[in-house]
């Protein structure tokens, strides 16, 4: 079953919060994973692995570098579900 953008954002915020300790409400679409949320590449790969499982999608390794912001990831995951 496909998740709405809203649901993907909420789910992704939970994953990011668990990984980083940041509150879920700080994980907003315009936030950059590296510059705003201070997520290193190992953490980013952890988040990708957990998101793939949670949303039953595949996020190709080549695609990860294009996911600069939380919004980029939400859009990719939402469309990849379809």
């Amino acid at each position, binding site marked *: 079953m496909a998740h709405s953008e809203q649901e993907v954002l909420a789910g992704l915020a939970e994953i990011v919060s668990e990984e980083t*300790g940041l509150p879920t409400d700080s994980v907003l679409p315009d936030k950059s994973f590296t510059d705003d949320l201070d997520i290193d590449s190992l953490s980013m790969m952890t988040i990708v*692995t957990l998101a793939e499982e949670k949303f039953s999608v595949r996020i190709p390794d080549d695609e990860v570098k294009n996911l600069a912001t939380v919004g980029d990831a939400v859009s990719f995951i939402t469309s990849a579900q379809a």
Partner: protein
Amino acid sequence: MSTEPDVVITGLGATTPLGGDVASTWDAALAGKSGIRTLDNDWADRYEIPVRFAGTLAQPASERLSRPETKRMDPSAQYALVAAREAWADAGAPEIDGERLGAVVASGIGGIWTLLDGWDVVREKGARRVLPMTVPMLMPNSPAANVSIEFGARAGVHAPVSACASGAEAIAWGVGMIRSGRADVVIAGGTEAVVHPMPISAFAAMKALSTRNDDPAGASRPYDVTRDGFVMSEGAGVVVLESAEHARARGAKVYGRVAGYGMTGDAHHIAAPEPTGVGQTTAMRYALQDAGVTPHDVVHINAHATSTSVGDMIEARGIRAVFGTDADHMRLSATKSMTGHLLGAAGALESIFSVLALRDRLAPPTINVSQPDPDLDLDLVRDTPRELPQGQIAAINNSFGFGGHNVALVLTSA
């Protein structure tokens, strides 16, 4: 005349089945309490494991660490960090250049929870689901590395692996770092997190574990004639080692000195102790010599004594052989009777017990001994603490590990 610096202990930290910190652990030990409990899970029934009990932390690490910390560290590193933070704060969080600060934190087995979880993920979900932190979490140097990162220790990060002697060996290495001039302060200790069905099954397969399922608190009974194996336990013990000069300059509180160490190898058998105990006695002799302490100065011994039928008495005979008639005035304690066997953390925790015994002039009790082995020719402290003399006194802490690792540490009062 030696120009090597004296090494003192200025901070203590622990998380154990007896308590979430050093104070509660030591109080429980002096009170003769057991930290061994029946496991509240269905492992034994599900996997037909013959052992249903272990020593589990009195305070879960999750209550002491942030959620990301618990997700990014194996329990073995989590326990080490909890103990290291306590030890560092206890030492007064010394101001020190990271180039002069070392970290030596050992584990006997390493990140086995992470290792086995990772393999489960591969089998059940495929390689793509394996988390990228798996290797940094399972590697046996992970506790040492996490401690070094936490405190900025850049003088050297080490993780000696010597099974159940690891924690004591870590302290010896820390002393060596300070003596050789590589560091002024070293955070040193051991950690272990193996209360997991696989290692319990594996140790049980060696017939190394007690199977006294109807009496978990009474299962660890070093020197008792009915002893039937050791009790698996978990936790961490960490000390802050410091050159005496550095400690004096900053007015640090000093618990005692790590005056010397001795380390030998049996080169005999991968698991069984060498029957004559010569490797153990040689380690004790080296430690005394290194410390410049005579057998007569030693008033207390925290024995390795895991509650196995063979091991306990090899050590006991070795103590008599090294100390001769001076053993008559030594108070012998086997604290694993209360804590169980913390494997790679045991030597570090027991060094903490030893230095506190010297400070408080109290040898902790050995519980569960109702019929001492008739061959035990030493003054065993049973059930309640016994006083130690005033003045300058010394204690010895033995730790031996599968593979033939023998480590003896000599500690002296402040």
